[in-house]
């Protein structure tokens, strides 16, 4: 009987530890929606909500790739710079006379290659991902500046700019792309072998290696995925502005890491939540929008977002420490 009680208690504990961060985020979001709707008549209108979704879609796409990397126990600081580089490559290709489709494909391949470079160096040379991706970030930014000569490239065919400012019913391509990728990412992370290995890689890569799985292959694949997601972000930014800026996507890596962590994915790896990441992106998007709607100066935006992230991370850390202290049965039996 004691066993049964323990099982129930465990189940409740598990369920809450998996869903609690996301539930909390949704709660915070609801409070924010209500507050903003009361204070501003513009906030809760379809145009404004569409605006929020539209802006968030870029962050969502980058953060989805980042969710894979962080839950595999890594980090990728290069996504903002890779987004810029991919956008610049697409623009340069089109300037050189290539069609929109081929140029986009080329840009995505560039993103994948930068991801492959990250993954290969991190996995084979066992170098800290923080340092490696920092290097690739600077390298990508440098390449973007060299290719453009520091001057933005602008003026693209409609087939390209459609990806940023086209219309599909009441929606636009970035929103639909974000929605589609969210669905895909959730299925892949939670139901595919690749997803299983991504999480196990973050949980205990030695266990995975000793089970005969090629950890190099899967880790590199994770970083390639993140690189391609960054390139898709580059496509959206470039198409939306009809301009390829070598300095586009500045600090985008910080925004996506923040969203992933806020969404309940463990920085230690092993646990990742696609739903949490998307909710967190929407929450941050709503926050930015809300501060604008309330005409609060943009300097305060950075401040408020910083505070929210710190509070969320501290909250998650305290909770996970408590959880460990309360449930680690192994710790009890090693003492004798």
């Amino acid at each position, binding site marked *: 009987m004691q*066993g049964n009680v*323990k*099982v129930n208690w*465990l*189940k409740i504990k*598990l369920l809450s530890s998996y869903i609690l961060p996301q539930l909390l985020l949704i709660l915070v979001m609801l409070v924010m929606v209500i507050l903003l709707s009361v204070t501003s008549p513009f906030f809760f209108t379809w145009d404004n909500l569409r605006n929020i979704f539209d802006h968030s879609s870029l962050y969502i796409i980058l953060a989805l790739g980042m969710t894979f990397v962080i839950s595999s126990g890594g980090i990728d600081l290069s996504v903002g710079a890779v987004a810029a580089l991919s956008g610049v490559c697409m623009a340069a290709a089109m300037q050189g006379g290539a069609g929109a489709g081929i140029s986009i494909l080329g840009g995505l391949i560039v993103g994948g290659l930068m991801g492959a470079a990250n993954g290969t160096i991190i996995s084979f040379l066992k170098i800290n991902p923080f340092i490696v991706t920092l290097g690739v970030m600077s390298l990508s930014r440098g390449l973007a500046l060299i290719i453009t000569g520091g001057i933005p490239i602008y003026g693209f065919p409609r087939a390209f700019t459609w990806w940023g400012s086209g219309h599909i019913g009441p929606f636009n391509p970035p929103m639909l792309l974000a929605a589609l990728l969210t669905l895909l990412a959730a299925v892949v992370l939670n*139901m*595919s*072998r690749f*997803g*299983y290995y991504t*999480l*196990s890689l*973050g*949980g*205990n890569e*030695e*266990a*995975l*290696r*000793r*089970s*005969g*799985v090629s950890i190099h292959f899967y880790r590199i694949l994770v970083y390639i995925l993140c690189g391609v997601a960054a390139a898709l972000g580059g496509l959206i930014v470039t198409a939306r502005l009809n301009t390829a800026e070598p300095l586009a996507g500045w600090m985008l890596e910080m925004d996506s890491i923040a969203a992933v962590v806020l969404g309940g994915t*463990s920085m230690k790896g*092993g*646990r990742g939540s696609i739903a949490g990441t998307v909710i967190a992106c929407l929450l941050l998007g709503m926050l930015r929008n809300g501060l604008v709607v309330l005409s609060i100066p943009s300097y305060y935006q950075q401040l408020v977002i910083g505070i929210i992230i710190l509070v969320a991370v501290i909250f998650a850390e305290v909770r996970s420490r408590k959880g460990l202290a309360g*449930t*680690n*049965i*192994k710790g009890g*039996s*090693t003492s*004798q």
Partner: protein
Amino acid sequence: MSKRCTLGKNPFIRLRNIKKSFGHVVALDGVDLDVYPGEVTALVGDNGAGKSTLIKIISGVLYPDEGELSLNGKTFRHLTPSRAIELGISTVYQDLALVDCRDVASNIFLGREPLKARFFVDKKRMNRESEELLRKLKVSIPSVTTPVEFLSGGQRQGVAVARSVKQQGKMIIFDEPTAAMGVGESDKILELIRRLGDEGFAVLIISHNLHHVFSISDRICVLRNGRLVKDFRTENTSPDEVVAFITGSNRHDEKSRKESTKA
């Protein structure tokens, strides 16, 4: 308890003249070892005698500098983790090599998840087969969907054993299976190891606890300073004799060492 089944049987794995050094430190200095199916072979020795190095070589984690391993009539210079698993060697490590944050079924099937529609992991099948396997092994675990981090030491060991069996293991290696475990739990694990031997697995176990070694093993091999100094049938020896060989306070041991250096 122990069955005399070595005679007339081929060993599952045969190690010959295995040598391994780490820089200037000689960990293994020409070890010969046979492990037979249906037997529990215990590897004992002091700290630094080379036990862990030896099992890491058998499981393909480390490559020997010299010597060879033969299985099924094939001879190898070294194995890799995936090759060892293919050949039916699986290891239950001291640190257990479980992914703490993943559930029991995912750990048991780690590296060999069944698929449906060529893409989706067949979670239902994993859960069902894990439950069946754990029941067969008499390992009691509240639920196969519990993350491993919430389990006790004995239960974790049970999960690790189930994974070895699931990997089509014919030989299962245990590295200090009862370390950090209460009395009741270690008894259960010892029972499980003995049962694996009786069911025909070739079992190799490293343990510091001679009481445990004597209660479950068929053979005891003593390693000292990187050499296999003695190979006993468990029923023909006593703990005192084994200790004498482990510590090197035995004259026979000195003699055999001199002989082997001559040869």
